[in-house]
């Protein structure tokens, strides 16, 4: 049988290696391709986006569209200007734009996603040589740039969420403040407005740990002195109900608020084998552990400050679980755990390495959220751990089949 030239489906010429492809085993391939991986991940990521569009209205869809389109256009422009070959077409640019949109607030002005997309594509991805070579998750590079360059508009005091009767069709800019700025459920938009302005739950929780002067007297229950006029309130009384946080009716990025939808989409990614369950689980578990141990501050009697370690055990352990859940779902941690830290190129490859990486991400994210005034603690933590990915790959080496367990590799070659 003569081995003739192999036809190609693509316009690119098949280089010699691909010609050899047909000559060596295996002669069958799994159906999954890189393009499929990116597009299916983008499909899963559009579920939180849909939730964001429902909660924040059509402005969220506009922000997402600007982000995706500018990512694709900027990537094309970059490769057109530098004349380097485009790597992997557009699918990864779409995915990056979508993930970037998930992290941006819906109230952002139009130039924010454009600038963030430029940073994501050029600094995060193209400088390193494109897909498969970058060190930091590109969408988070863009988000960090947005957080630094547009600090005021990215981190307002009060965040708009559409009223319950104005979902999806309402205009997010038509917002007005309400008296009790915590709860969303059971409240429509104020007259003449589409959205209510709510306090971010993270800023409420920050009053427990980040300030030198504590704002709350306890986590859940009012101590005896509460009857005294002017006494401080408890922390949970200032928090929105947990159901609001789970469905996502709070301030934050377009896709980072709706925890239920993120988890469903993330489980689909795990089912597709694009994400190992160990990574999100280790992120969330280590974050929960840090939140359970790290101290909170209360105001005690006579304006003294009480530092309380192990808040999980506070008040006979009755409120610890709720406290940890509040800490986990009030930032972008869940989105980071399922969608951003799991970006394939910037996480370690081996399972053990991913667990190490996830522990670092979760602990760092919770540390930043508790004690450092940054608007995007989870994303900064993921970016920081991305830096250590090559190091984790180097130190975590699974034992190869047939190599002795407790001897130095390289000295154990048999025969």
């Amino acid at each position, binding site marked *: *049988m003569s081995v003739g030239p*192999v*036809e*190609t*489906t*693509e316009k*690119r010429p*098949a*280089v010699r*290696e*691909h*010609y*050899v*492809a*047909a*000559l*060596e*085993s*295996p*002669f*069958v*391939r*799994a159906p*999954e*391709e*890189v393009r*499929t*991986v990116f597009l299916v991940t983008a499909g899963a990521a559009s579920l939180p986006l849909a939730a964001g569009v429902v909660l924040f209205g059509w402005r969220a869809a506009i922000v997402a569209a600007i982000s995706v389109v500018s990512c694709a256009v900027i990537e094309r422009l970059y490769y057109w200007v530098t004349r380097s070959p485009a*790597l*992997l077409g557009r699918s990864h640019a779409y995915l990056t734009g979508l993930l970037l949109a998930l992290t941006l607030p819906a109230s952002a002005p139009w130039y924010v996603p454009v600038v963030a997309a430029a940073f994501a594509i050029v600094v995060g991805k193209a400088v390193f040589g*494109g*897909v*498969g*070579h970058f060190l930091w998750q590109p969408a988070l590079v863009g988000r960090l740039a947005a957080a630094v360059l547009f600090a005021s508009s990215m981190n307002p005091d009060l965040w708009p969420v559409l009223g319950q009767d104005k979902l999806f069709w309402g205009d997010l800019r038509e917002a007005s403040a309400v008296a009790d700025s915590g709860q969303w459920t059971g409240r429509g938009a104020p007259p003449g407005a589409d959205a209510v302005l709510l306090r971010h739950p993270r800023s409420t929780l920050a009053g427990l740990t980040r300030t030198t002067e504590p704002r709350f007297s306890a986590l859940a229950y009012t101590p005896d002195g509460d009857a005294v006029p002017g006494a401080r309130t408890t922390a949970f009384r200032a928090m929105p109900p947990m159901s609001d946080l789970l469905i996502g009716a709070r301030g934050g990025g377009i896709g980072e608020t709706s925890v239920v939808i993120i988890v469903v989409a993330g489980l689909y990614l795990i089912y597709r*084998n*694009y994400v190992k369950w160990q990574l999100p689980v280790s992120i969330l578990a280590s974050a929960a552990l840090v939140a359970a141990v790290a101290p909170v501050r209360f105001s005690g009697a006579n304006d003294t400050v009480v530092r309380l370690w192990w808040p999980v055990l506070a008040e006979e352990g009755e409120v610890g679980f709720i406290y940890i859940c509040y800490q986990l779902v009030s930032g972008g941690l869940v989105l980071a755990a399922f969608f951003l830290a799991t970006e*394939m*190129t910037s*996480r370690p*490859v*081996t*399972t053990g390495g991913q667990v190490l990486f996830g522990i670092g991400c979760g602990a760092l994210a919770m540390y930043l959220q508790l004690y450092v005034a940054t608007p995007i603690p989870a994303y900064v933590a993921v970016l920081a751990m991305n830096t250590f990915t090559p190091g984790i*790959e180097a130190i975590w*080496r*699974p*034992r*190869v*089949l*047939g*190599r002795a367990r407790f001897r130095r*590799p*390289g*000295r*154990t*070659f*048999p*025969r």
Partner: protein
Amino acid sequence: MIFGRHGTFTGGIDLPDLKQAVVARRIVAADRPPRLRVPLAPCGGAPARMVLSAPAHVSAGQKIAQAADESGVDVHAPLTGRIGEPTEAEVICARGAFISPAIEITELGPVEPIVPTAPVFDWRTAGAELLREKIAAGPLTTARPRMRRLARWVEDARRCDCRFLIANVVEPQPHAAADHRLLAEHGTEVIRGLAMLSMATGARETILAVDSRRTGSYRRLEVAARACGVSTVALPPKYPVGNDTIIVKVLTRREVPIGGESFDVGVAVTDAATCFAAYRWVACEAPPLGRVVTVSGGAAAQPGNYYVPFGTECGELAGQADGLLVHGGVMSGHMCSPATVVTAATDAVLAIAREPAVAAAPCIRCGWCTDHCPARLNVAALNDIYELGRVERSERAGVLACVECGVCTYVCPARILLSQRVKQLKRVVFGLRERIPLFTTER
């Protein structure tokens, strides 16, 4: 049939079961080929010396060549016919293809199907020494772990004091069904051959490992297995459980050392075809003249399981198919030319529709190659080593433990030829080790 418990192994992958075309087809005799080219050195080494010359007429089973040395085997005429001119034939074994001197046989008689023959030799009471002599006297070859005389294999097993003898009848690769059909139709002979090899090698435990999807076909072998002291294990067909290293790990929890063979941990591995041939030779004194070959694949003219005389050309078996001709399974087999001849190592000849080549994308580090590697290699890191050209790092990364199963290339979404790259690294490491003594680590 009662199947024993078993472990499993890390990695591996469940391949699509593409055996519907052949798994239920009974073994039939192949069509009469126009000519045979019988290799005189199927195991490599010196070719056998002819005892008959050119225009002589031979009948099936007649000895036509005498082994030249210890490593060679006698050659018997697979079919009745007339001896032609000396020629050459391409032979493929697990380590690759080579050209062997061959003898052409033309004017062939018909291919006889496998008929059960009454045993003429009482192997049960013969004793191990006599069995070994009988095996050494015959033209028996084995393809596991590499092509060689069965007598040499038995010697190696005895020298390593093998405790386990495993007959690996799990065929996890798509299309392959030859060993399954042999066990289903001639299972008693296979099991007796296995027991015989067990006596000859002195193995204390004899295990027949079968595919857990096919156990229904093996029910009636229970009596024979129990009578011969063979324990049976049904394994889930996760690829590459057909590999020696992996099945040793699964069944005995022993790990073959890096770069070693299963003999190094006291386990001998064989397959159904070898057991069958050994039984037919020792008990019935019928020399192996052919073997069962699965002919399948999308482009095969007539898929099925055929009893094929040695020396038939693969192109004859597959028909004039316009596709890739593959010798062995689709995962670990070799592409062959139509002129490659059938030997004891040929378990399947597949004609696969030629797929258009796709350009490889850069690695996105999805890690599926690492997840599915049965040797637990970090294939993504080895790919980095390959791309950076840092060969000296690859030995520390364990590249020599690669079992060459091809799973990494199979799963790679970027269509990178990972297993070829790892094999190339292996070759370079071996080459460096042979030429530069300083590079070799301490023994």
